[in-house]
């Protein structure tokens, strides 16, 4: 009997009884004894390994169904789904912003103007409220990031156009309220969504969407800059601020595109 002939026996079954000559070799061979001890330790380690983690799926439902006389229809263990990036967005704050826009507009819109509004201004204000509601409905129903970004861009454009329409008649503080809402819709709406939109699998759609939003912000900046030169004195700071907001948003979108290009 040699180590070479005993080794396969031990590896296959370290607990099996050995033939007399194998047992005699084992008693006198430190190497084979060491191997046997290693194998026993190996088996013990495997045997005492941790349980498969519990996931809270007890066989209770299965047992209940089995014990019932009806056919067995049991629930399957459900793996928690990885939340999408859309669901990880701060939708409560964003919804709050949207609701805030609506509420602010409602409050602002109901106030009696200090100067007599023109017919155009009245129509514009009424239209804005309608359009804001449409944007909010769109935002709450669509799940596609491209459509959400477009809805936020439309919303911010409407706010900007409203300032343009009311520049002659609305007091400075009311224009500033619209400016604040405009800033939120650009920063917390368009830019925030774009920043949280992972490019994987939708790179082309993401790029196109960001470029469209970028172009519209660039156009908004140009128009706001021009209006800042022509508008009544009290409205100029609002247009200047809106031009800055649009520029910052556009720059941020460009930055996101550049990061994506480098990453790809």
């Amino acid at each position, binding site marked *: 009997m040699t180590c070479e002939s005993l080794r396969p026996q031990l590896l*296959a079954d370290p607990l099996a009884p050995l033939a007399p000559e194998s047992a005699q070799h084992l008693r006198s061979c430190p190497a084979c004894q060491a191997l046997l001890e*290693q194998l026993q330790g190996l088996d*013990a380690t495997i045997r*005492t390994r*941790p349980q498969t983690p519990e996931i809270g799926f007890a066989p209770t439902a*299965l047992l209940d169904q*089995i014990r019932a*006389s009806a056919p067995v229809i049991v629930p399957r263990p459900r793996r928690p789904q990885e939340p999408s990036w859309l669901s990880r967005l701060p939708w409560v704050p964003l919804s709050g912003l949207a609701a805030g826009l609506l509420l602010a507009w409602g409050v602002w819109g109901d106030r009696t103007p200090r100067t007599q509004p023109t017919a155009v201004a009245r129509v514009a204000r009424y239209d804005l409220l309608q359009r804001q509601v449409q944007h909010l409905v769109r935002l709450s129903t669509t799940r596609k990031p491209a459509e959400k970004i477009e809805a936020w861009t439309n919303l911010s454009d409407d706010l900007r156009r409203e300032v343009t329409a009311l520049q002659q008649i609305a007091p400075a503080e009311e224009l500033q309220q619209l400016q604040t809402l405009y800033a939120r819709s650009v920063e917390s709406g368009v830019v925030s969504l774009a920043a949280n939109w992972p490019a994987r699998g939708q790179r082309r759609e993401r790029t196109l969407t960001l470029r469209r939003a970028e172009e519209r912000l660039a156009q908004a900046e140009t128009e706001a800059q021009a209006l800042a030169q022509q508008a009544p004195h009290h409205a100029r700071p609002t247009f200047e601020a809106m031009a800055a907001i649009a520029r910052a948003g556009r720059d941020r979108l460009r930055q996101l595109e550049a990061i994506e290009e480098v990453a790809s």
Partner: protein
Amino acid sequence: MLTDTEADADGLAEQGWITAAQAGDRDAFARLVEVHWQRLRRWLGTMVRDPYLADDLTQETFLKALAALHSFRPGTNFRAWLFRIAHNALISRKRGTRREQGGTPPDTHPDPSRTVEELAEADETRQLVLATLQTLPDDWRAALLLRIDEELSFAQIAEIVKTTEETARWRVFKARQWMLDRLPEGVRDGLRRREQPGKPKGNTP
């Protein structure tokens, strides 16, 4: 660990439940599920490394067993029969989906009778052994676990994994050899110092 008398009593009780279940007693089959659920899940869990899939496969195994209960031959090994169904379910699932998960989680119940140094060493040994276990080919790991955990004979293992007794023995042999060959010498030495609770010393001279 069960005494022979307790084991015999359990065996008799199980035979009774099997007979009753085959006669249509659902409650008797539910008892069989309760008895075998954990060990079946443990084996499947180590094979697939995914607790959700392990639960799903365990449940599937028992549902198939219930459906095929009439085909079980009384007097043969019910546990081995269950593992055969589980192995078939496992193979079917692996054909359908290839899913790789992380390694086995660390043991959270170290032996309090050891020193910190011994515990650290033992924990490292355990981690390396379990990591190496997961590198085994599926066929070898399945056979090795059935041998070590379930203490099934090579003939029973062969029946479960649908091969010959010689092949089952060879797979267990190769699995242990593979693992020892891949463990560092220090870890192999650490194995020699490991306690083996409740197990016979076997061939220890």
